């Protein structure tokens, strides 16, 4: 892998930034790669649009800003509308499939894979872990990071006592991601 640019987008309160942090942490701390994270959110807390830009590379990263991501992870309609046209042609869109309907604004050759992450999170007991389902889905569909590295990054990143639920969410998203990637390969 030379360099992979990722953008995560959604609403404030969906854990967009944490999603980006976990991907970056799994890459930089547990996979021996280089990673950068740029986070953007407004002064309002929940409900406002926010996004994280993550770059992962085997080499040092000179420029951390992501303009045309290879992978876009989106959890809200607004984030999809704003960021989907910026995807690199031939890139990968990972979306919350029950919130976002994929349309023709995607650049040519983009592969779109969806996951009912909100429903999975609610079934697991807490809607709060929607973003962790998305991290698992990211790991399962892209294969960019070893699952063990992502698991350790999640364990490190979430409040003590909540690890079990978060890891269940991660596994759920990962297993679903593996299935979806295999079917649509």
């Amino acid at each position, binding site marked *: 892998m030379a360099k992979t640019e990722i953008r995560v987008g959604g609403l404030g309160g969906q854990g967009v930034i944490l999603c980006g942090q976990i991907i970056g942490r799994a890459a930089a701390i547990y996979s021996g790669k280089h990673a950068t994270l740029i986070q953007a959110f407004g002064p309002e807390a929940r409900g406002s649009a926010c996004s994280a830009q993550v770059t992962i590379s085997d080499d040092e990263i000179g420029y951390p800003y992501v303009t045309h991501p290879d992978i876009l992870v989106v959890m809200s309609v607004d984030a999809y509308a704003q960021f989907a046209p910026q995807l690199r042609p031939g890139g990968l869109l990972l979306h919350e499939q029950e919130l976002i309907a994929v349309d023709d604004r995607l650049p040519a050759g983009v592969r779109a894979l969806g996951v009912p992450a909100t429903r999975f999170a609610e079934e697991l007991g807490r809607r*709060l872990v929607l973003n962790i389902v998305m991290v698992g889905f990211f790991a399962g569909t892209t294969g960019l990071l070893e699952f063990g590295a992502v698991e350790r990054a999640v364990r490190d990143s979430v409040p003590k006592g909540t690890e079990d639920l978060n890891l269940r969410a991660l596994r759920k998203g990962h297993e679903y991601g593996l299935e979806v990637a295999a079917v649509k390969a």
Partner: protein
Amino acid sequence: MRLEGFPREATLRDGRTVKLRPIQPDDETTLGEFYRDLPEEDRLFLREDVRRPGWAEEFIHTVDFDSIISLVAESQEKIVGNATLYRSRHGWSAHVAELRIAVARQFQRHGLGTALASLLVRHAIALGLEKIVAHVVDNQVGAKRAFEKLGFRQDAVLPGHVKDIRGVTRDLVVMSNDVSHLWEAMAALVSDYSPTMGE
């Protein structure tokens, strides 16, 4: 939800080991024996008539590992403890679960109840629950202490709510372990808001 990491072994304070595992359909006979063998004063504090023929079979059929999650402790192929978590999947108390535990006399005060309770408390948190409650009678000092060690605190006392084997009226203590702070911490973490941004 499937219970992971079972069966597992627990070493009690006196060195004995017991096997802890989810209850299973073929436990019907041994579970019935376990409850029938409990001394009357212990059985009195249970909510159901566990000596009734067919009770164990009915109980096992209610365990779905979703609303009702039950573990047993096994020693020499006999059940010596049973702990069950009850939760409602809807309504105003969907965030609460109730924990009930019974331990054979010869295994009481050796840490078995704590071991069983600890596993179910952890499981309750993994289910996203916010509060786990347990009911104890005021003179069940060991049980109260065991729950306190697991983070339970006295929530309420219902005076004269139970009568013991001698007909003595006793207070029922409602204890709870409030873990809502865990989810508040998680909510803060995913708020996507930083007060220091832009400074």
